[in-house]
Every structure is written in C-alpha cells, then in structure tokens.
C-alpha cells in the first residue's frame, strides 16, 4: 500500500476545510477537544489543528490531503508533512485582500521548507467582492510560471481542477528532468 500526500495551506478562513471536504471520501471526524486523557499521558505533546481527508486511488494507492495553517509556529509539522508530499496548494480568500500579505508569507515559508511543485487557489471567486485573478497575482507578487487558479471550495469541479493542475505541474517537472 502506497500513500502520498498533498498539503493545503493558507491564511485562516481561506477555505482549506471546505476544499478538502469537497473531494475527501471520508468526513473529517473532529472535535476540538484533545484526544482522550489516556493519550494525554504520552509525553509533553503539542497538538496541532489540521484538516484531514483521503482519496483512495486504487488497491495500492491512497492520497491524503492535509489542511494546515501556515503559521510559523506549526513549522515543526513539516517533518511529518514533507514525507512523501507530492506538492502543496496555497489557498487565498479572494474577498479579503488584507490576508494576501499573510498568504505571501506562508507561500515563501513553505517553498523554503519543501521544494515541491505548488499552485495557488484563489477561493471564493463566486463572491461579488472577489478580486480578479490578475490583481491577486500582482498582490501576491507571484512568478508568472506559478499557476493561480480560480476556486469555489464548495464546488467539487473547481477543487478537482486545482488538484489536477497541481498534478500536471508535478508531471511537467518530472518530464523536464526535475523531481525528487
């Protein structure tokens, strides 16, 4: 059984949870309480809030989607997340330009941690006050080679499109002689 991972990151409330929920075959079962008292005895553990989804590809392959906040204080999770990580998606709330700077910072942090392909998903593109993609690209100072994709996280088709574009980027990098 082979497992691969993709990480969905971005500022708070960018839509990471909805994104994963749209395509995950499992509901992310969650509570905000910590795991049982027994497990709390484990040692001085830090807990991390993350979303978690799964897509079974076939008998031998499972794709896990991890939705994680991108704040620096969670960078210790990169050891676990970077194992087998194919690539990552940075989600941005198109209606909240005040979060673009944070998104840019998250993007830079993740690029430093993992030199894997990534795409940026401009979420909430169905809202009236959503910024245009070109303007978001300028605000994020994205390299022209980086894909910036429209997304409505509750709509499966747009989520699929984002995942596929990331996979195409991964494939393109392999074919150009890059890769891991």
């Amino acid at each position: 059984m082979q497992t691969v991972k993709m990480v969905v990151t971005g500022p708070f409330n960018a839509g990471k949870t909805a994104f994963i929920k749209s395509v995950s075959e499992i509901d992310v079962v969650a509570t905000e309480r910590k795991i049982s008292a027994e497990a709390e005895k484990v040692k001085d553990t830090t807990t991390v809030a993350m979303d978690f989804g799964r897509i079974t590809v076939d008998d031998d392959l499972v794709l896990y989607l991890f939705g994680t906040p991108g704040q620096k204080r969670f960078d210790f999770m990169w050891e676990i997340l970077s194992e087998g990580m194919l690539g990552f998606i940075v989600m941005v709330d198109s209606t909240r330009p005040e979060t673009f700077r944070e998104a840019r910072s998250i993007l830079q942090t993740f690029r430093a941690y993992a030199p894997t392909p990534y795409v940026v998903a401009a979420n909430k593109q169905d809202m009236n006050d959503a910024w245009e993609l070109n303007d978001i690209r300028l605000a994020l100072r994205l390299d022209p080679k980086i894909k910036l994709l429209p997304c409505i996280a509750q709509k499966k088709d747009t989520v699929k499109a984002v995942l596929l574009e990331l996979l195409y980027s991964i494939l393109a990098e392999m074919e150009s002689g890059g890769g891991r």
Partner: protein
Amino acid sequence: MALKGNLRDFTITQLLNLINLAQKTGVLVIEGPSEHATITFRQGKLAYAQTGREDGSLAFILQQTRKISQSQYRLLRERTAQMSDKELGLLLINAGYLSQDDILTSLQNHFVEIVRGLFTWGDGLFRFDQDVFPADGKITVRLDLENLIIEGSRQMREWERLQEEIPSLEMALRVSERPGANMKNINLSVEEWRVISYASPKNTIQQIARTTKMTDLEIRRVVYGLIQAGLVEVVRPEAPGAKPPPIRQFPTGSNKEEQKSLVNRLISRIRSL
C-alpha cells in the same frame, strides 16, 4: 560469576532494584525479542546505555535527541569518525555549537529512553557482568535508578492494560466514517497524525509502527487514544495470509517512470471524482 537468567523469571524491575540496592557496578546485557541492549551501571546508578541496532556514537545520540540535524550528523560521521565521543564532545563545546549541559542532557535522555523501553520486554536472556565499563572514550552519566524503576512499573501496568485493549498488532486500522459529522479542526499530536495518515485496512498496526519507527508500547498508546476519540476503528486486515509488503511512500531518486506512473494514476482518479 556473572548473574544470568531470563526476563520471564526475573523481570527488568527486579534486576534494576537489585543493581540499585546492591550498588552494583557492571554491565547488563539483555537479548530481547528483536534486538539486544547493553546497560552499564556504576555503584548502582545508570552510567551508559546502548541498543544493538544503533551506532551508539555521541553524534548519533545528538541527532536522535534533535540537538543536531540529519545533515550535521552525516557530516560529523564523515569528518570525526576517528574521534572518540569525549573528543567530539569537547570539540563541539569548544566550537560553541553545544554546551556541556546540552550534551549531558541528550545522553541522559537517550539512556533513559532505552531503559524505559526495556520494561516492555517480557522475555529475553540477560547477563550481568561485574566491573565491566564502557570503552574509555565514551561519556558516561550518573542517574539514580529509583525514579526509573517507579516509572517503569507504572509503564508495565499501562502496557498490560494496552495489551488487553489492543491484543494484536496484526489488525488494521480504518479511519472512522461518520456521515453528517460537523467539520471542525482535529487537534492531534505529531505521532497521532503520523498514525492516522497510514490508517487503511491494508496496513496492519505492526506495519504502521515499523514505518513510523514506534515501539509496540508507543503505537498501542497512540492507537488506543485514537480509538477512544472515535477517529479510527480496528478492523481485520484486507490481505490475510501472505506477508504484506511494507508501506511505501512516493518513490524518490532515479525511479522516474514509477513516479510518473503514480502521478498519472492520481490524475485519472481525480478526474473520475
């Protein structure tokens, strides 16, 4: 004459009690189910510990205790292979990379972890040789055994309880599916996230433990917690009988064709959603 026996007849708790009370000096070698451990004592206190599978060097211990990174460890192995642990320790301190306290704390923590692990060994031949010391270049510590023994006994009781709850590691895990559950964030530890990311009816708990480098006790503890929280269920593995292959991650290195094939499979699957 050396003290010899089997842990079935003389538990690790009893051995440590004896060494502590009699203030013994010497080395205890235990041949466990899958590896062996060498524990050295001086006047009834823990001085040094090493398991068979590790290289036991100071550089290795510092990397295990995260005082140095993997790449630093590799560098030190290449460049200081001829140095003893004491020489390396002095080098690191004089160069300002680590303090004496950093090094001693790392060693103590590492040795304590090894001894803690022994409490789950219910079977194994042991031998205690008096007045045997580690090699000259090794850095020894001086740790009281009482707290370790008390903690070990507590751990034994927990171990027995966890074995009752999860008697077999040949079972598999499945992430619970609760349609209609509200979406909220999960708060899990790093170890819990590791385990849950491998949960699949095709992966036995034993396989997950090996892949995540957890001991039997650690994996049982984590799985028990996840079960109690309703995040996973224990299920029969889907491939009984034949020895299951190890869990594999994304193929790296030069295996480009395999990598591309895997990505193409992912693309097909996502398209079909």
